[in-house]
C-alpha cells in the first residue's frame, strides 16, 4: 500500500524549526544598532533577489561602515599623550 505522510504535520515540524531560528537569531545581547542590522538582514533575505547573498552583503557592509566611523572614537585620548 502506498501511503503519503500528511503535509500539515510536516508544516508543524517545520514551524518548530522556524521558531528555533527566530528565537536564537533575535536573542542577540547587543546594542540597538546590532538589532537593526539583524532586522535589515532578515528583511533583505526575504525580499531582495538573491536573498541570502544580498542580505550577507548588506549586513557586512553595515558592520564595516560602523567600524569605520567608530574607529576615531575608539582611540584612547590618554594614550595619545604618552
Amino acid at each position, binding site marked *: 500500500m502506498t501511503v*503519503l505522510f500528511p*503535509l500539515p504535520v510536516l508544516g508543524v515540524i517545520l514551524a518548530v524549526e522556524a521558531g528555533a*531560528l527566530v528565537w536564537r537569531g533575535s536573542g542577540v545581547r547587543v546594542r540597538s544598532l546590532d538589532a537593526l*542590522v539583524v532586522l535589515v538582514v*532578515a528583511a533583505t533575505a526575504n525580499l531582495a533577489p*538573491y536573498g541570502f547573498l544580498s542580505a550577507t552583503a548588506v549586513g557586512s557592509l553595515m558592520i564595516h561602515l560602523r567600524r569605520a566611523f567608530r574607529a576615531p572614537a575608539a582611540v584612547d585620548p590618554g594614550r595619545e599623550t604618552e
Partner: protein
Amino acid sequence: MLKSVAADLRIVMSRLDFGRRELSGAFGDIGTDLPPVVVRGIQVGLGVKLGTIAYGRYVPAEGGPGFYLAAACELLLAGLLLRPRFPAAVAVLLLGTGWALWHGTNPLGGTAAMPPAAGLPSREALWTGLVLLALPQVPLSLGNSVLATRDLADDWFPGRGVTLRRIGTTYSLFNAVVGVVGGIPVCQGFGGMAGHYAMGGRTGGRSCTTASSIWPWRRSRPSGWAT
C-alpha cells in the same frame, strides 16, 4: 621501480592533503570575517521564510481537516515539550502516521523518499545548479549551516570538538556524494539541530531514527519526474 612509485604516491598524497587543509581552512577564515550579527540576521530571515512555507503552504495543503490535524499536533507538541523526557517528535510522527494510514493514499500532497538513482549530472545541469542554486546558497550555508551550528554546538555540547573545519568538510563531502546518487542537497544546519534538540533528539542515534522512519514512506517516481 616500486620505490619511485611509492615516492610519487607520497608526493601526490602530500599535495592532496595540502589542498584539503587549504580548502577546509578557508572556513575558519570566513568564520572570523563574517560578523556574528549578520549570522543572527540570516537565522531570523531563514526562520521567517520557513515559517511562511510551513503556515502558507504545508498546513493549508489538505484544507479543513489539515488545519485540525495541525492544531492537534501543535497541542501535542505544546504539552510534550514541557516534559523533556518524552520525545515530542515521536508522538507527532505517530499521529501523522495514524492519519496517513486512516486516509490511505493522499492525492493532495505528501512527501516520500525517492530510491537512489546513480549517475553523473550533465554539464548544463552543473552550470544551472551552480548559478541558480549553489551561488545563492553560499552565504546561507556558511552562516546557518556552518557558523551558527558551531556556535550552538559549543553552547549545548561543549567539549565535543565541533569545529568549523569538521562541519565544513563533512558537509561538503556528503553533498558531493549525494549529488551523484540523485539525492537533494542537505546540511547539518542550525535550525534542524535546534529543532531536534527541542523535540528530544540529543544523541547521535537521532540520525538513525530519522533515516529509518523516512524509509517506509518511499514510493515510485511520479509521472513526469525528471530522471
